[in-house]
């Protein structure tokens, strides 16, 4: 009779059991327990420093290799490719007219055939490069971070580099990715389960206290699930109860980053599926503001619910992303004025990601949510800085739009981002006709101006 289990199988089973136990113990001790108590062993920072050294080495090798083979190295243009000449419409047209040697400027006719040069040039310049369209795709890197997805220079340079890249691939996909996915499931699962349990308690101080702890703990586990290395600056300005927290938006991860350092009431639309389950259980433990799809269109309803929340001074600060869409973290686009009309103190927060470790920008036209999260979890790490700016309130003579722009400028300045007036909605929509009319008006005014001068003289 054959033995059901021969000794070899037994051994394999035992080994498997032991390694799984060790694995889970390590996980628990080094990751989950610190997350619960909010302490850190510093493993992630060490990891970050090692990675940086590695990237520098890799870049040097590429540059050296390129020089040896006489390849032209492609350096990305991250800022404007066109030299900007800050002159106004009137000045430039006058200059063009002046260069026509046979006409005297003051007695120039009202309209010159050469005026069109100015508009043609500006049009082609904006086709060559403009401030807005490049914000909706990922930023370019100068050094290579050993991810195939972000390289432009990678020819076959050396065996060592390719081996390193291959090793990186193996580590990222077979070690880091499963680890992170496990943590993510743990974090989300705990969140759903524990908030449901807390929801059973009667409203009161105990419930609020527990809900705070649970939220923080689960978000910290999620932070570790993404290997996010976050540096918080100026924590004395952290948003307080009864206020609104406003931040620039690059990806859905922003929420996790902010919520792991403080408790917020989130605002958003209720989704179906897994997201919906998470949202519904979260609201049992603490009053987040979720809207049905139909309610989102009704601006008054939204404003009323938000201001009702603010009335109760013991409620958590509201977290809002006024840009309304994800921008690629090189600029801040127009803040929608709705969040600035409801009153209350505004606590601005600037978030800047370090693109060397992994690009956090969510290009929703290119990637869905799941593939985006998988990309995030298979990058090296997500490194970012968060600055808490001093609180601001709307002044007497300011309207909502001016206030929004003031806050936006402060955030852009702190994060080192470009401050743009354009609407992030341009990602999907078209520019209104009114902008074209502005330019036409300017030009017409100039012509009328010369007409008036002539009739006066």
């Amino acid at each position, binding site marked *: 009779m054959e033995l059901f289990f021969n000794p070899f199988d037994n051994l394999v089973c035992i080994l498997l059991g032991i390694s799984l136990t060790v694995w889970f113990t390590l996980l628990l001790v080094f990751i989950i327990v610190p997350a619960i108590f909010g302490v850190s062993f510093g493993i992630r920072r060490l990891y970050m420093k090692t990675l940086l050294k590695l990237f520098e080495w890799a870049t040097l090798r590429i540059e050296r290799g390129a020089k040896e083979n006489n390849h032209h190295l492609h350096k990305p243009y991250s800022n404007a*490719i066109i030299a900007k000449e800050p002159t106004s419409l009137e000045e430039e047209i006058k200059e063009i007219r002046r260069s026509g040697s046979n006409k005297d400027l003051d007695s120039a*006719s009202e309209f010159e055939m050469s005026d069109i040069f100015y508009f043609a040039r500006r049009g082609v310049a904006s*086709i060559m490069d403009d401030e807005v369209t490049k914000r909706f795709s990922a930023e370019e890197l100068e050094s290579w971070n050993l991810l*195939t997805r972000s390289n432009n220079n990678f020819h076959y340079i050396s065996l060592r580099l390719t081996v390193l890249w291959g090793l990186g691939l193996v580590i990222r996909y077979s070690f880091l990715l499963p680890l992170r996915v496990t943590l993510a499931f743990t974090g989300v699962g705990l969140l759903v389960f524990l908030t449901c349990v807390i929801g059973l308690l009667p409203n009161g101080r105990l419930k609020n206290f527990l809900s705070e702890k649970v939220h923080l703990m689960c978000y910290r586990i999620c932070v570790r699930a993404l290997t996010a290395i976050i540096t918080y600056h100026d924590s004395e300005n952290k948003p307080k109860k009864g206020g609104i927290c406003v931040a620039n938006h690059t990806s859905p991860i922003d929420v996790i980053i902010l919520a792991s350092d403080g408790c917020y009431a989130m605002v958003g639309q209720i989704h179906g599926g897994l997201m919906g389950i998470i949202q519904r259980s979260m609201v049992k433990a603490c009053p987040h503001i979720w809207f049905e799809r139909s309610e989102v269109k009704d601006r008054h309803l939204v404003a009323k619910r938000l201001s009702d929340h603010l009335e109760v001074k013991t409620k958590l600060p509201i977290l809002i992303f006024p840009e309304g869409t994800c921008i690629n973290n090189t600029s801040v686009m127009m803040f929608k004025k709705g969040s600035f009309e409801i009153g209350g103190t505004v606590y601005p927060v600037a978030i800047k990601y370090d693109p060397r470790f992994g690009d956090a920008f969510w290009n929703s036209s290119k990637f869905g949510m799941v593939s985006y999260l998988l990309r995030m979890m298979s990058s090296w790490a997500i490194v970012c800085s968060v600055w808490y700016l001093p609180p601001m309130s709307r002044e007497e003579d300011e309207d909502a739009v001016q206030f929004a722009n003031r806050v936006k400028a402060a955030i852009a300045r702190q994060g080192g981002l470009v401050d743009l007036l354009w609407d992030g909605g341009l990602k999907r929509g078209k*520019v209104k006709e009114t902008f*074209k009319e*502005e330019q036409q008006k300017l030009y017409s005014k100039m012509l009328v101006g010369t007409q008036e001068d002539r009739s006066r003289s």
Partner: protein
Amino acid sequence: MGALQSSPGQPEYVDLKEKTGFSFSQIRVLHKRFKLLSHNGETLKRDHFNSIPDLACNPIRSQIIEAFFDRRNFRQNGEGPVDEIHFEEFLMVMSHFKAPSPRMIEERESVRREKLRFIFNMHDTDNDGTITLEEYRHVIDELLSLSEALEKDTAKSIADAAMLEVASTSMGHMEPDEFYEGITFEHFLKLLKGFEIELKMNVHFSMMDTPTFCK
């Protein structure tokens, strides 16, 4: 995506460099821009240009966009509009706005002609080689606003005045029943003789900047 992904073929760029006069790095930058505008497609269509907000502000944007789809600007002696353009044609049209290199002082006249030809083509929408009064009026209409700052027929009167001036400069004294058909390219050149268009109608590339990282 293999590890041995190569950069865009250099031999194509050599060809383009000779035809257009742009340097390698400029061609690379413009190629990236082309891919961004076309959403990584092979060709650009008119619709793709509409996604540029700065261009949407420009009063003559439709003329500028048409210029990109006008075969006369492709330097292949063709005529008529196309529906979509490849990178080579895009670069050809862009090269009209290239700053002349200092070495090309002798060729300044031909550079001038090229740039003025571009502007001429922009006015002459029916490809017949002359800018008629209607066509000119249309362009001026686009430039002016519909606000009350100007009277209703201002565009018409400006266009008429301009055409009259052109006629008198180029034809001298006209018989009462002679009809001035339109501005030909030679007249156009003569009119704009004094303007240093080769200096004014250029778009300059700036130096590279290094990106900023987290502090």
